[in-house]
């Protein structure tokens, strides 16, 4: 099957999959009780509850409620977020941008540390530096994120006072416009060094915390790949022709060792996105993760639905892209067979 036909077929199926997912999730959100809970106060009478249910059509049968929700989605209305006290569509882009900014910064930390430590350890196999770097990298994966985050706060926020908490200094944040929602990018677009510095200053602690947790798997993969590559004949050949060990490592072995590591880096990004939920709660990062956690606790069904819909679409599209890219790169793969 031609790639074009395959993409077309997948695109035709895509909406059905999304509708299927949305029906399942919509049904599941109703199992935990009525979505009216987000609007309730402790002392509300049953008449007042009924009034609110009628206002949001929650007194209708579930399929009718789904129809209202689906119609809203098609019209670009994902509902009202009780947690954010605003329409979901108005809040979502900024939250997503905040989360992506943190995830990307964490990925930079994880990749830098992971590849650096992995290379350092692999080139000194079974020597003291190898053992030390392994301890450093593995401890990142072993420590629970919530605990490590608190420790980082105690050290760098409370005692040293080097880094703050939150995403920005409010006055600085308000001093520039935010066309992309990515604070660092917006700061650069505005040409404000103060804002850029503020963005980075706030990013360092959560990104280091989150990135450190993802370092281990990258470092381990890098180390083992490098150890393997260093045993290859082409490395011996390079050494035999008199190339300095430093150059053998940099120009030959490390470059090849990076290939499998890159795959792991892709997987680690998923871990980072998951980790943002905990990191956002502890570091007061106003992203999707914190919003979702609050929404789940407070029963904000509109937000949960929007989040699940978003991740489902993302997952389906990424899957499609991966399949196509894979087929493009490796002609032995036959799509749709």
């Amino acid at each position, binding site marked *: 099957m031609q790639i074009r036909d395959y993409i077309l077929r997948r695109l035709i199926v895509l909406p059905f999959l999304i509708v299927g997912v949305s029906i399942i999730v919509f049904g599941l959100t109703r199992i*935990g*009780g009525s979505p009216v*809970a*987000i609007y*309730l*106060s*402790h*002392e*509300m*009478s*049953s008449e*007042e*509850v009924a*009034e*609110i249910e009628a*206002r949001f059509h929650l007194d209708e049968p579930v399929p009718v409620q789904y129809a209202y929700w689906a119609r809203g989605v098609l019209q670009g209305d994902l509902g009202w977020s009780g*947690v*954010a*006290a*605003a329409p979901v569509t108005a*809040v979502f882009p900024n939250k997503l941008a905040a989360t992506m900014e943190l995830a990307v910064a964490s990925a930079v930390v994880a990749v*830098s540390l992971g*590849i*650096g430590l992995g290379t350092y350890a692999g080139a000194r196999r079974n020597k003291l530096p190898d053992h030390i770097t392994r301890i450093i990298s593995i401890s990142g994966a072993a420590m629970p994120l919530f605990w490590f985050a*608190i420790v980082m*706060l*105690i050290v760098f*926020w*409370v*005692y040293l*006072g*080097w*880094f*703050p*908490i939150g*995403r920005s*200094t*409010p*006055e*600085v944040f*308000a001093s520039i416009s935010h066309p992309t929602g990515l604070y660092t990018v917006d700061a650069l677009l505005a040409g404000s060094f*103060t804002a850029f*510095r*503020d963005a*980075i*200053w706030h990013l*360092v602690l959560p990104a280091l915390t989150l990135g450190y947790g993802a370092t281990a798997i990258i470092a381990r993969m890098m180390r083992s790949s490098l150890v393997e590559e260093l045993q290859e004949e082409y490395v011996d050949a390079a050494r035999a022709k008199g190339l300095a060990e430093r150059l053998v490592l*940099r120009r030959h072995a*490390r470059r090849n060792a*990076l290939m499998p590591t890159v795959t792991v880096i892709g997987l680690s990004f998923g871990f980072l996105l998951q980790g943002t939920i905990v990191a956002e*709660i*502890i570091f*007061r990062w*106003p992203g999707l993760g*914190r*919003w979702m956690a*609050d929404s789940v*606790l*407070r*029963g904000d069904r509109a937000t949960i639905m929007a989040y699940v819909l978003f991740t489902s679409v993302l997952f389906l599209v990424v899957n499609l892209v991966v399949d196509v890219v894979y087929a493009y790169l490796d002609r032995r793969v036959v799509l749709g067979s």
Partner: protein
Amino acid sequence: MRSSTWRWAALLLALTMVAAACNSATTDTTQPAENTETTNTPTGGDEVKNPGLLVHAADDEPSTLDPAQVEPGEGGETVILQVYERLLEIGSGGPDLVPGLATEVPTVDNGLISADGMTYTFKLREGVKFHDGTDFTASDVKYSWDRAMEMDLPEGAAGVLSDIVTEVRVVDDFTVEVELQKASAAFLNTTVVAMVSSIVSEDAVEANGGIVAGEQNDFMQGNMVGTGPYTLTAWNRGENIQLEIYDDYWGTPAFLDVRIEIGPTPDVRVLGLRAGDFDTIEADPSFIGEIEGAEGVTIFGEGLTVEPIHIGFNLNIPEGALPAEDTIPTNFFHDPRVRRASNHAFDYQGFIDGALGGFGDFNPHYIPQGIFGYDPAAPVYGTQDLAKAEELFTEAGYCPDGFVVSVITEEANLFETAALVLKDSLESLPCNIEVRVLAVAEAQFDDAHAQDPIEYAMWVKNADPFADPHSYLSSYQHPDGEWGVIHGFANGYADPQKVADLIDAAEVELDADARAAIYSELQFLLYDDPMWLIAGQEGVVAAYRSWLKGWESNPLWPRPSLKFALIDK
């Protein structure tokens, strides 16, 4: 990857660290002038952080800033207290009323309350301006109260007005008269000072959607145009709320701008206080262990909150509704011996010493300490008496055969702890009792608690805070009151009519001594015929940086019980 790329990465990382270090050590050029002295000192440094700014860490975000929509006890009330004003306010030192936008507290003696107690006159302050620059007049008062009643949003507290007010009349630009449906000694303390009675700018509302019955006003939900010492400058949802000193305020101006940081977890709030980035934090007794001894931090622990923590008895259990494990009959709590036995069995001291960290006290039924009408001579369930409890359960036929009962509660807070103390207390009796504690998420609890009738035999909650005893008794004890009907109090009181008559009589009794005597009688009566198990009255606990001056707390103000305008650094 090319080696040059690595160098760039290393350089970028180094620059980041340097930038961060520079940022922490240098001043912020966008701060107000006085902030240029800001330095980040390690914990314990005595240099004031963020001069000119009060940073409060709250645990909750408002769902609305509209007085007509805000739910009593909800985060929005905190902000409304600072930005809007009411005709009268609760003063700093205690429950006494002080003039707000009215110039005098009405009394029968000063002629501002009619002899029959049906008409209240408020003389208004002149020269007051709203934050949008318009003048405050009597018309704004009428508009604000009528607006809340007309909108009548279920999540709001419009009933506080509509249950008692017949009409608000504008006499002249600076005089309003309020006609009541019946004489009410509770009117000033219950209605006039309530957040729903805050005065909003008529012009601002009319320019932004006006009044639509049954519908929220989107503008007012996120914007505030009041007369108070602060203006709202920003509400960054999920992050912070910023208040600025209102320069044209008619009264004593505030000292500091305010930033309310929204939703740090309890651990982070404590760390922020230690770091000096937060000046005050939303605290409860469970925080004290973590804060005690912290340099530069003051712990305040005086007085009691006015939100008693109660365990409810359902006297209106629907047939077949209880969890399958429960073995109690639907009329279980109709028997006063069962209610009294439960009250005797509870380990009050354990709850206060443990869960409340010693910051709390026992509470009679159902007037909290600190509220008018509280009678210290009234009997109170404050000592665990297992022998008496066993005797009463035996008399009622539930000992030694026992029973299984479920208690629903929110998870991971004081309410769950109270439920666990109840479980421990009842199960320590030689009666084969099993208490199942169903700790659920807040939203799930609210959903269950909002059912009519409620489908659980027992639950744990606290009362809404009120400034007048009538609000407590009409809501929580009156057989025909809001909860009395839902929970079937009439099925249990030995003499429901007597309870109702006493509560109704106290409401209209304008003589303070006579009114207090009625409340005293009620407290004795409700001890013998309890409708609740009051686990305790939580102490006021707060923690703040010692560099704050003028710090005052009044539990009758919405949580965190602070007026920011009184605080300086």
